[in-house]
């Protein structure tokens, strides 16, 4: 093999590898990217059970209920227009409380209850996730 050919061959292999990785990445993204949705958006366009999403909104006042096992809670996430019931087992973050912003990661079960795997509460002003920051300025009628 001439020197020129080897460089060319290597370049072609590298390009093929990069394109292959790109396809793998895109296929993975199609299956696994989780959308961010508010209750109003879900009401307008329901999400299939089992599909991973991030649900963002306010924890409705008076909606947090502890279940008898002591580690599971149910609450309602609302954004002024619509409501979504949520269930979560685990230790809630320190700033998780009623009438405060929350982002829950998880999926709907067959009964339309959002089962959260992770809960991110509104931290102090410096560390607020952008989705919540937008929410507070764009959804009137919901104070923080």
């Amino acid at each position, binding site marked *: *093999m001439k*020197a*020129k050919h*080897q*460089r060319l061959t*290597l370049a072609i*292999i*590298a390009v093929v*590898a*990069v394109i*292959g*990785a*790109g396809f*793998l*990445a*895109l*296929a*993975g*993204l199609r*299956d*696994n*990217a*989780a*959308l*961010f949705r508010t209750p109003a958006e879900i009401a307008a366009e329901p999400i299939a059970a089992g599909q*991973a999403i*991030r649900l963002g909104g306010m924890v409705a006042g008076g909606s947090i209920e*502890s279940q008898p*096992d*002591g*580690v599971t809670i149910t609450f309602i996430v609302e954004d002024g227009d619509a409501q979504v019931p949520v269930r979560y*087992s*685990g*230790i*809630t973050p*320190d*700033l998780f409380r009623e009438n405060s912003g929350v982002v829950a*990661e998880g999926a709907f079960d067959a009964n339309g209850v959002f089962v959260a795997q992770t809960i991110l509460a509104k*931290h*102090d002003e*410096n*560390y*607020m*996730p*952008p*989705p919540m920051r937008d929410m507070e300025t764009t959804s009137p009628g919901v104070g923080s």
Partner: protein
Amino acid sequence: MIAEAGLAALWFAAALCGLQLMFGIFAIRSGREDISSAVRPIAIVQGLLTAIAFAMLIWLFLRTDLSVELVAANSHSAKPWLYKFAGAWGNHEGSMLLWVAVLAVAGALVAIFEKRLREQTLIATLAAQAAIGLGFYAFLLFASNPFARLDPAPAQGQGLNPLLQDPGLAFHPPTLYLGYVGISVAFSFAVGALVTRDVDAAFARAMRPWVLGAWIFLTLGIAAGSYWAYYELGWGGWWFWDPVENASLMPWLAATALLHSVTVLATRDSLRAWTIMLAVVAFSMSMVGTFLVRSGVLTSVHAFAVDPQRGAFILGLLILYIGGALALYGLRIGTVREGKQFEPVSREGALVVNNLLLSAILGIVLVGTLYPLGVEAVTGEQLSVGPPYFNSTAGPLALVLVAVMAFGPLLRWRRDDWRALIGRVSLPILIAALALMVLVFLVSPIGILPMLGLILAAGIAAASLAPLWKRNLRRTPLFTYGMVIAHFGVGVALAGMAFESAFTEEVLVAARPGETYQVGPYSVRFDGTEPVAGPNWTAIEGRLSVTRGSGSAITMRPQARMFASPETETSEAAIRTAWNGQLYTVLGNGDSEGRWQLRLWWKPFVTFIWLGGALIALGGLLALIGRVRRERKAIARELYA
């Protein structure tokens, strides 16, 4: 006056940096020796001045000088001294000053210690280093001045984010920055070589120690960050595929590829264009990482301030440098002579496969990390890409990479024979097969990735030691030991990851005092809670009485802490380390019936993950020492020949 002195030092350093760039360019164009001889001293003084500026900032933080805006916004007089000290870089401005200081000091070190590189290439390298530095000086001085005064000074500072009040802050950011910025040195070498068209084995030998050094620090920084997140967040996870983590992983992947290709260039004078390309990519990734972490496009404890102007500034620098580097590469690489060619079945061939796989993984991580940002910028749609994506795409490729890693070091340079190779790898394959049988027969079903991980970990641990087989261990060079230990470390880390994800046990309960729970080999009795206080926090502390088998009980104390300034609560996990794993306990909320939420994990062999990381870095260190020593000897031989 301290702040003014620091600012003055910074301005002087920036001016010298501009001078370094101008002199460098002029020296290369004109070939005048009197000008090129000035470049080295300028680089050294520039490094010294930024070091002084950084020392001034630390001094201000130690004194808690509240007339300085940055100190007032991020510190508090009641903070323990370690966090006053490390708090100097626990904020946007301070961390950017650290970035610049590391860059300038690295340039000074190159100017002092680099003896082998051709003078012209060295001058071009220092000029490239200055060109990078200039942009960041501008960013510091015009958009992120750490020494700005506040008038009138407040009576008290606002304190440091409690999540950052941890010894990890003293270690993780500086090591990671040394890695990020060290890669820029490798990049400057590449630019220098492109300018003088001097890409050959001697150049690779000069560049290699800097690549190794940067890579060691990146490895340590990532491992330290992983362990810090593991114990501080209280989520029990060691890697979340968070964009900020990916920001450090991507330069590491590129640097790992570069480290291996530069060895091919140094040993066989092959892969010239590819090695230069990797240096450009590695630097681009460290720029992307800096942008992701420091611009505020991502939200995390790392994004100190969300300021669109700053984000745009860093984005501008990013585009300028990456675009400039790629343009120079495109213009010049055609004129660099082709290196030697090689046989596919050889050490070089295996290292090319290593490089392709690492590049593919890098591409996947890059796409997954930037995709949400791109989608939001274009359509406004918000989405997140997390572990399901990365585990299903990068995970299998990483396992293939580890499998190739078992064979590569057993291949000879130049040309080898498949049949001979199979003879050499039969023992590791046997061990991997044995691991497979043990897993299939003795263990309850586990996921496919952890299963493959455990098998490969056993195989690679054996294969990594094989290069020492039948060798005179005393005469084996130090850098060979380095490779063996680093590859063995990969096996150790992989075993830890696989064990943790396959065999972790979790108990989540609302516990009444006196109740006992079993998790892993431990029995944990909840004895109730007590209020406790620290220097700048109060806490509710759980008391857990923990026994293993018939051993005596020990007390574990997970806490829920409340910080006064800024007002924040954090959860402090209590962790018990045994030789074969960790017991990880978190205290949650109490309820009206007197119950407390407890989360208990038994994580078998989880410590192997960071132990493996440390071994990888140690291997890098041995390789570095071994290479530098051999170079010194070569120089001495030339001098006295």
